[in-house]
C-alpha cells in the first residue's frame, strides 16, 4: 500500500493536478474568446494594479473592514502553499527519487505553519457554522472542501510527531494530499487557479474601462 500511494499514485495525482489545471485554464480562455467583449475590456496594467492591491494584506477597503478575517486568511493561504513545498521531509523524498532539491523550512517553523493551516480550517469551519450569511450558503460540498484541505495537514502533523499508528497515518497523509491535488482543478478549490483571472477582469473593467478603481 505504502509503495503504491507513494509511488505511482503520486505521479497520477500530479499529472491530473497539472494536466487538469492546464485544461481548465485553456477551457476558460478559449471560452472567453467567444465572448467578444472580455479581452477587449482587459488591460495588463489595471489587472496588475488590482492583483497587487488584493495580494497585499490591508491594501483595500474590504480587508481593512475585517482585520481578523484578513490576518487569518493570509496566514492560512501562505502556510497552505509554502509548507508542503518547502518541507524537509518532502524534499528528502524528492531528492531520493528524482535527485532534485531546494531550500527547506526549519522543522520547527514548518510545524507551526501546519498548525496555522489547521487552525485556519477550524476558523473557517466555525464561521460556516455560526455566521448566518455563510451558514445560509453552505452545503455538504463546502464541508467536504474544508475536509479535503485540512486532512493532509492534520495527518501530516500526526505523522511528523509520530503520535500514533505511524505507518497508517503516513499512508493516509500521502493519500489525502493526493486527493487534494486531484480536487483542485475540478472543485471550487480551483479559485486557486481562477482568482487571478476574475480579479484581473474586475480590476480591468473598473480601471481601464470605467476609469475607477476596485480596492
Amino acid at each position, binding site marked *: 500500500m505504502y509503495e503504491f500511494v507513494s509511488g505511482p499514485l503520486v505521479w497520477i495525482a500530479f499529472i491530473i493536478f497539472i494536466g487538469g489545471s492546464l485544461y481548465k485554464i485553456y477551457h476558460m480562455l478559449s471560452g472567453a474568446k467567444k*465572448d467578444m467583449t472580455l479581452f477587449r475590456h482587459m488591460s495588463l496594467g489595471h489587472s496588475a494594479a488590482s492583483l497587487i492591491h488584493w495580494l497585499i494584506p490591508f491594501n483595500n477597503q474590504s480587508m481593512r473592514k475585517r482585520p481578523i478575517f484578513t490576518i487569518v486568511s493570509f496566514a492560512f493561504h501562505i502556510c497552505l502553499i509554502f509548507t508542503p513545498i518547502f518541507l524537509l521531509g518532502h524534499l528528502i523524498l524528492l531528492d531520493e527519487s528524482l535527485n532534485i532539491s531546494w531550500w527547506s523550512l526549519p522543522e520547527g517553523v514548518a510545524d507551526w505553519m501546519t498548525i496555522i493551516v489547521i487552525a485556519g480550517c477550524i476558523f473557517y469551519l466555525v464561521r460556516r457554522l455560526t455566521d448566518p450569511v*455563510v451558514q445560509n450558503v*453552505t452545503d455538504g460540498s463546502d464541508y467536504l472542501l474544508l475536509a479535503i484541505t485540512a486532512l493532509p495537514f492534520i495527518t501530516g502533523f500526526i505523522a511528523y510527531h509520530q503520535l500514533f499508528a505511524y505507518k497508517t497515518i503516513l499512508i493516509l497523509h500521502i493519500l489525502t494530499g493526493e486527493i487534494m491535488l486531484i480536487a483542485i482543478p475540478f472543485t471550487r478549490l480551483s479559485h486557486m487557479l481562477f482568482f487571478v483571472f476574475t*480579479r484581473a477582469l474586475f480590476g480591468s473593467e473598473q480601471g481601464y474601462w470605467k476609469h*475607477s478603481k476596485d480596492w
Partner: protein
Amino acid sequence: MKPTIAIREPVVDDLMDQTEKSLTEDQIEKVINEVIDQETGVRLQTYVNTCIHCGLCSEACHWFLSNDRDVSFAPVTKVKDTIWVMLEKKGKVDAAFIKRCSQIAHTECNVCRRCGMYCPFGIDIAYMMLVVRRICAKLEMVPLYLQDTVNSHAATMNQMWVKPDEWIDTLQWQEEEGQGYVPSARLPLEKEGAEIMYSVIGPEPKFLAQLLGNITVIMNVAGCDWTMPATAGWDNSNMAMYSGDFEVMARVERLHHETAQRLKVKKIVMGECGHAFRGGEYDGPTWLGWMSPPIPIVHAVAFYYDLLVSGRIKIAKKVEGPVTAQYPCNIIRNAGLGSKLRYIMNAVCEDFVDLVPNDRHAFCCNAGGDTINCGPPWKKIRVQSARLQSENFKRTGAHTIVTPCHNCHSGVEDIVDGYKLGMHVKFFSELLIEAMEIPEDLQA
C-alpha cells in the same frame, strides 16, 4: 442547499402576477438555457465555480446592512436563490421561482457593483443579477411600472411617452425661461456641426423642465456652441438596459448616437443622470459591438468641472451653509468622476460636507439600477432599505443634498421624506444657477 427564508410583505404587481399564471415550465427551461449557453459563456461559469461562499460581499450591500443584516438581502444569497438554482436544476424551475428571481434582481438589487469591490476574487455579482434580469425579461417577468417605461422606449424612443410636438414645445418654452436670466440666450435646435449635442432623460421635459432652462443659461453664459435634436434620439435614458430587454436597449443607444452623428457634433454632453451615462458610455456600445461610443460622451459633472476650471463659468456668490452630495454609482464607482464632483461642490459651496464613506465607496441611493422605476408597489421596501444612507446624510447636518443623477434625485427625495431629514434635494445645475456670475453684457 436549503432555500433561504425570506420574509417579505406581499406585493401586488399586476404584470408579474399575470406572467406567473401564464408561464409554462418548458418556456422557462428553454429561455434559461438559451441565455446561459449563448449569452453568458465562461464568465458566469467561472464566477460560480470560483465563489468559495465566504459571504464577504455582504458587508458591501446597503440592502443587507439597512435591514439589520437580514441574510436574505446579502449579495451571495441573491446569487444562491437565483443563478445557483437555475444551474443546478438546468433550468427546470417553475413560474413562482422566476417571479422571486425578478423580485430579487429587479426590486432588491441596484446593480451598483459595490459588492464586486468587496469580493476578494472580484466576482461581479451585479453582472450575475443582470443575467437574472435578462432571463426574467425574456420571460416577460418584469415589474409593471418598469415594463411600462421599456414599452415607452420601444414605441417612442423616449422613456415617458413624450410626443414629438411636446418635446419641441417644451424646449422653446424653456428657452424663454432661460431668456429671463440672459435675454440673448438661445436653445438651438438641429444645429448641424455644433460642437456639443446636449441630451437629457425623458423625465426632464415631462416634469423637470426647469432643468432645460438652467442648461440654456449655463451654455449661453459659458459661450458654448451647442444644440439639441428636434427628433427622437434626444432621450439618453435607458430603462431597457436594466429590465433586461437588451434589444430595446440597443435600439435606444443606437438612435442616441446616430442622432449625434447626424448633427455632426464633436461630443455629446448629457444632463445629470447616472444610468444614462452607463448606457451611452458602456452597456450600449458593448452590446452593439462598438465597444466605445463613436462620439465621446461627457457627463454633466465632468462638463461643469471643465467650465469651472477653464473659467468659462465664474462663481459670484457661493451657496451658504452646509451642503452635501450623493455620489451616483454609475458616474463615481463606475466612471471615476469622484474628485471632479468634489471639486465642483467646493467651487460652488461655502461649506461642502462630504459623506462618509465617500467616492467609490459611497452607498447607493437605493433608487438606482431601475429599482425606483419598479414603481409604487415596491417603494416601501426600497425606502426601508435605504436606512443606512439616510443615517449618512443625517450625520452631515447639511441643509441640501446635491444629486447629479436623476435616479439619485428621486431616491434621495424619498429618503428625505421617509426618514424626515428636512433637507432639500437639488441638482447641481440648480446650485450653479444660484451661484454663477452672469456677465453684465448678458444680463437682463
